[in-house]
Each structure stands twice: as structure tokens, then as C-alpha cells.
């Protein structure tokens, strides 16, 4: 897999998951007690032997840069290849609307040209999954496809598939039909936004697109030219979520309370890596009352925690009550406060006696460093 380059294409998705993306891009949204969304696809890539990963960012990527650092946590701090964070050239993006991912790629043509890898695998930064991409690459190469698209059989949640495109495949998984308009095709195979293609194909596509004004790799190339291209489809197995809404974010976090999902997502086929931090053990005081919950290190629990996920360094004071909630790093729930169906971003303080209560289908979201 030395000859495969990973590309994580971090799009602007501020509107779909507000508050949590006020100060960070979607790929660096915290998830599952100690992770960031990008950890999943990045670990999938490196566990599969990918040794060069380019992360295309657009804005609000300071926290992403801090998180990724030199890529050491993913063993990507390499002398050759390794991790590249590719921010936009500010002058290319002075227009108010995003000109499409092809222009991002175009601004880094020399980067691609200097890379030795043969194939590229392109993914967004908001997928929660743990994939063995070696098999997918082998499938792509064997099939001789121009593009291999990923798909999900039995798509469970609609929000995981923002393009809502179904597809129909032959016995050997060649794509026979790909919906131009959502809702026109029968079946249960839905497109996932991961593609494999040769670097050569990508470069030619970029050059042509710049000439004829195409902006979006999926919309303006793969979908538009679907009849001219030799497209194959590869199934995504195991746990899968694409974080495209607060609801989906909430539900995917809560899914982790299921031991089977957790074992699968965090360890199979390889471990999910993230940036480690210096936090002591979590301490449970006498009288604490915790069940069906995930807690990262460095928490101090004196109160009650049920069906919840606590990130690193959260304090739950005496008499505080947390239920069905996601509490991010270093937040503090003071004495006798009550938090239910809520998502608290980092360093939120809920004062003594205060109540924060959302609904199961609409968890309340509290922004970073708020004091309530």
C-alpha cells in the first residue's frame, strides 16, 4: 500500500452541525469520548498500510492542525511521505461561495505531480467507520475500473447518505446504474462518498475540469460522466455513520454504548488512533453512581451518570445528575445540576442547581466555554 495515497477532503459543513462547528471544521469535531471525527478514516488508511495522506482543509482548521500535529499518533511522521495538511491559498477562496473540491485539488497540482503513488483513495472527514482498504484497493485494481465508488447495503439511516444516490450493480459489482435524481432507483445500495481512482485519472480529470468549468468531483464528473466511465462499486462493511447533523452525531455517539458496536468500531480490523493526552485515571468518589456510560480519563465523578459519554477531564459534582448526554472535555457539572439529552461542547460549566434538558429527538447543544 506504499503506492496508494489517502486524501481526506474536509468540506465546509458548518450549516449541518452548528454550534460544534462554530470554532472548528467538521473533521475535528470531538466524538466518542476522546476522538475527533477524522481519526476514523485516518486510522483506516494507516492500518491498511497507506503511508501518505493529504488532508485538504478549507477553514477553521487550527484545531485540526493541533490535533494532527506531525501525524505521530498515526505513525505518519515519516521522512518521506507521511502526513500533509494542505490549507487553501487564501486568494483562491476570496469568493464567498466554495468553488468545489476540484479547485482545491488544482491548487496543489505540484503536490500530486511530485507524489510517487499510483492510486488515490478520497474520503470526506466526517465518517465514523473502521475499514480495511487493502481489500478495496485490490478490488479496484483487479476490476480495471476508472473509478471505484463505495456503497452501503441496507442503508440504515438516511442522514448517512447526503447525496441520497442509489446504485445498481452487476454480479461482479460493476455499476450499471447510478441515480441522477435521488428517488428514481429501486434497491438498497446507497452511495458512500469514498472513491478510488488512479492518480493519473485524477490529474487528467482535474485538468479537464478546470478547462470546462466543472467544480465538483462527484457531481460534475463521476455522476455526469457515469455512462462514459468504467465504474465499480465496493461495499462498506461494519459500523458506519456519516456525521451530517446533530441528530446523527448524537445517535452515533450513543451507539457506542453497545459493546458489540464498540468492539467492532474501535478494534476491527485495526485500532483507531487519536492524539493522546496527559490525564490521570478517572476517579469515582464514594457515593458516585454511574451506569451504561463511557468515560475517558481524567474525570472526577461524585454524582450520577447514566447512558452518557464523558470526554477527558469532566467533573461531575455531588448531587449532579447526567443522563443521555454527551459531555466534552473539561466541562464541569456543579452540585445538584441536572443535564439530560444534551451535548455540551468543551469547557462548559453548568452551575449549581441549574437544569439543561433537551428532548430525545432534539438534544440541546451548548457551545464551547459557555457558563450556564
Amino acid at each position, binding site marked *: 500500500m506504499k503506492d496508494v495515497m489517502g486524501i481526506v477532503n474536509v468540506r465546509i459543513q458548518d450549516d449541518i452541525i452548528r454550534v460544534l462547528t462554530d470554532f472548528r471544521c467538521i473533521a475535528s469535531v470531538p466524538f466518542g469520548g476522546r476522538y475527533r471525527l477524522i481519526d476514523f478514516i485516518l486510522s483506516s488508511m494507516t492500518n491498511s498500510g497507506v503511508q501518505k495522506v493529504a488532508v485538504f482543509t478549507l477553514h477553521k482548521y487550527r484545531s485540526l492542525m493541533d490535533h494532527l500535529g506531525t501525524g505521530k499518533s498515526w505513525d505518519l511522521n515519516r521522512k518521506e511521505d507521511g502526513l500533509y495538511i494542505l490549507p487553501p491559498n487564501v486568494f483562491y477562496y476570496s469568493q464567498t461561495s466554495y468553488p468545489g473540491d476540484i479547485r482545491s485539488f488544482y491548487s496543489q497540482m505540484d503536490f500530486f505531480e511530485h507524489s510517487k503513488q499510483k492510486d488515490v483513495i478520497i474520503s470526506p472527514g466526517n465518517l465514523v467507520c473502521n475499514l480495511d482498504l487493502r481489500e478495496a484497493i485490490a478490488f479496484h485494481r483487479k476490476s480495471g475500473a476508472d473509478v471505484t465508488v463505495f456503497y452501503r447495503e441496507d442503508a440504515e439511516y438516511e442522514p448517512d447518505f447526503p447525496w441520497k444516490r442509489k446504485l445498481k450493480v452487476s454480479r461482479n459489482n460493476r455499476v450499471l446504474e447510478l441515480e441522477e435524481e435521488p428517488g428514481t432507483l429501486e434497491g438498497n445500495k446507497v452511495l458512500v462518498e469514498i472513491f478510488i481512482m488512479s492518480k493519473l485519472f485524477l490529474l487528467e480529470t482535474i485538468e479537464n475540469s478546470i478547462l470546462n468549468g466543472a467544480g465538483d468531483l462527484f457531481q460534475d464528473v463521476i455522476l455526469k460522466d457515469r455512462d462514459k466511465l468504467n465504474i465499480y462499486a465496493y461495499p462498506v462493511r461494519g459500523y458506519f455513520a456519516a456525521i451530517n447533523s446533530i441528530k446523527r452525531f448524537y445517535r452515533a455517539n450513543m451507539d457506542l454504548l453497545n459493546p458489540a458496536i464498540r468492539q467492532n468500531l*474501535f478494534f476491527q480490523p485495526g485500532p483507531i488512533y487519536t492524539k493522546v*493526552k496527559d490525564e490521570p*485515571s*478517572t476517579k*469515582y468518589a464514594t457515593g458516585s453512581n454511574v451506569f451504561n456510560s463511557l*468515560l*475517558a480519563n*481524567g474525570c472526577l465523578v461524585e454524582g450520577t451518570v447514566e447512558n452518557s459519554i464523558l470526554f477527558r477531564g469532566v467533573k461531575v459534582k455531588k448531587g449532579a445528575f447526567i443522563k443521555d448526554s454527551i459531555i466534552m472535555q473539561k466541562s464541569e457539572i456543579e452540585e445538584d445540576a441536572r443535564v439530560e439529552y444534551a451535548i455540551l461542547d468543551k469547557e462548559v460549566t453548568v452551575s449549581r442547581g441549574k437544569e439543561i434538558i433537551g428532548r430525545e429527538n432534539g438534544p440541546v447543544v451548548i457551545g464551547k466555554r459557555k457558563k450556564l
Partner: protein
Amino acid sequence: MGTTKEWIAMLLAGGEGKRLGFLTSEMAKPALPFGGKYRIIDFALSNCTNSGIDTVGVLTQYQPLILNAHIGIGIPWDLDRKHGGVSILAPFLKYGEEGKWYRGTANAIYQNICFIDKYDPHYVLVLSGDHIYKMDYSLMLKFHKEKQADLTIAVIEVPWNEASRFGIMHTDSEGRITEFQEKPAHPQGNLASMGVYIFGTEILKQYLQADNERAGSGNDFGKDVIPLMLDEGCRIFAYPFQGYWKDVGTIESLWEANLDLLSSENGLDLFDRNWRIYTVNQNQPPHFIAPGAKIENSLANEGCEIFGEVSNSVLFTGVHIGEGTVIKDSVIMTNVRIGRNARIERAIIDENAIIGDECLICSERKDPPEIILVRENMILPENSVIRTTSP
């Protein structure tokens, strides 16, 4: 902007810890796991970093592989520095000499004078990697300079009945040491040496040389070098330390030190962000407390999966505790798996052990207290019983 350092630390990490049994069969005592995620040496190393020391020599010779891998180039303690940082100093063969293992604590430093010379510091801090405590050595250095001391020894009051395990000193009203007894059979005082020394570099080198030339010397700081310096009238001062300090010498005291962390007034606040204890962090998901589980007055770490009941215990990373199992007053080390409906009380279960369903491990002997130790990688079949009762 020169390369001379004000001070460097020499950290003695070669101790076998003979009374710790199996626990130290594959690692030196400073490498022992402690407090859910640390190794004992993390305390001395973190104290160095937090005290502003950027150059530390770690002297090893007994089973150093785990220690070497743990320390690496010192990244967790911010000791990966361009000038200085951490260096592992194992015994080695010298040009034209027979190989010599380190004999006593003083000899270990003596054999590495070339390392000290490389940095040419004004002061050398000599530490032991065996102790659990948080201490700002920069305050001790300040004291050392104020007293214009040749040597300053950090001291702590210990219980009288333990005094015979330590180097005991007597001081005059100014704090100058007038007498020093290494492990006295009948201690006359309870002011014990913590094994933390600050020397002026020149005087250190002079006395290491002198000690090395003395026939019959055990080449030990406590037994040989310090008494010699006292005899010759050196200015040796006692720097009084208040706070938590523990020399973990036995399985019982290791158990006790772990459980000390559960009391909120133990003086060893690991949550203090201004004096962090650094270590190599593991990559594991958050720990899970299952529906029906119960955990109280305990520490738990990432990667744990707890389906049973845990009280008054310390769980290291990746521990699995089955449904119906009760853990009490125990220390469960990394990656231990405990089945269902087992009961563990007053025990240390070492790394990677597997305890079957319905096992009973329980020590009821409290005077003298006894702790059951289950060995690393041990597989205990279902329904096993390990039990000690008071005689």
C-alpha cells in the same frame, strides 16, 4: 547562551526491588506500574521537568528493557531537548578495562562522571527512581545556595517504627547535619533521608574519587560517601520536605500506595494541572461502566469494561470485569480479564492475568497485613480459590 547548565539530575534507576517478588522479575523497581497508568519513575522524571531541569541521566543496569522503551528520548516528560534531555546510562566496557557493573549508588555516578563533565553543571541533583512523591527541586536548590552547602539532603519525618529502614539524620538548630546513620538498628531520630541529594559538582567529583580509592568502601552514598564527607567537616544540610512520600519496598506497601490515591487528602493530587505527572499514554477507547455495574471510591482507566462491582480499588488500562464479580480493596493491572461472579479482595493482580468465573481471591490476614499477588500472565481456571486467613 553557552552550553553550561546550572544543574543536571542523575536518576538512579537500577534497583532490583528484591522484596517485591515476581513483580520485579522482569523489570527494575522504577519501572513498576502504579496508580492506574504510571510507572514509579514517572514521579521523579516529572518532578525534574516541573522543577525546570532539562538534562537527566538515568542510570540503569537491572532488567532495563521496559524502562528503556518507556523513557525513549523523553518525549512524554518534554525531555527531548536539543541540548541535554534524557540519556540512559547503562554500564559499559571502557577502553582497555574489564567491564564493571555498577557497585553502589556512588559508584554508578562515579562511572558516569564523563556524562556530568559534558554539561559542566554547577550543581548535580542525585535522585532515586524508586519513590512516589511530588517535589519542587528548584526550592531545594535555592535552599542549597542560601546555606552555601556542600551537600543538601532532602529529609522527611517517618514513623518511628519504620526509621530503621532509612538513613536517619540529626541536625543542629540551623539545619546542618551533625550525624548520619544509614539504616540504624536502634534509630535515635526519625528524620529520614529521601535519597534526594544536591551536590556542588566539584565537591561531588572530589568525594566520588576519594571514595573510589578507599579500600573496602561499598561505594554507596548513604553508607560511605556521606559519612566520609561528614567526617571531613563538609557543610551538609537537611532540607525538610512536607507532603506525601513513599518508598515502595514491599508488595504490601505498593498496594497501600495505590490505595492511598483514593483518599482525597493524600497530598498526592494527580489532578493538579500545575504539577502534572507525565507518562506514556496508551491508546484505548474510554472505559465503559455497564448497566447494572457499580463503581465507587475507585480509579479506572481507558479501555476498561466494567460489568461487575468495584469499590476501593485501582483499575489500570484495559481491565475487563465480568458481571456479578466483586472487586474490593484491590489493584488490578493492565489488561487483566476477570470473569463472572468472581470475588477479589485485598489483592494485586499483575498484568495480563486471566481470572476465571467464580474465582475467589481473598486475603483476610491483616496483622501483619498480607496482600495476595497474582502473577503476570497467570491463567486462573474457573472456581479457583486463593485465600489467606489470619493465623
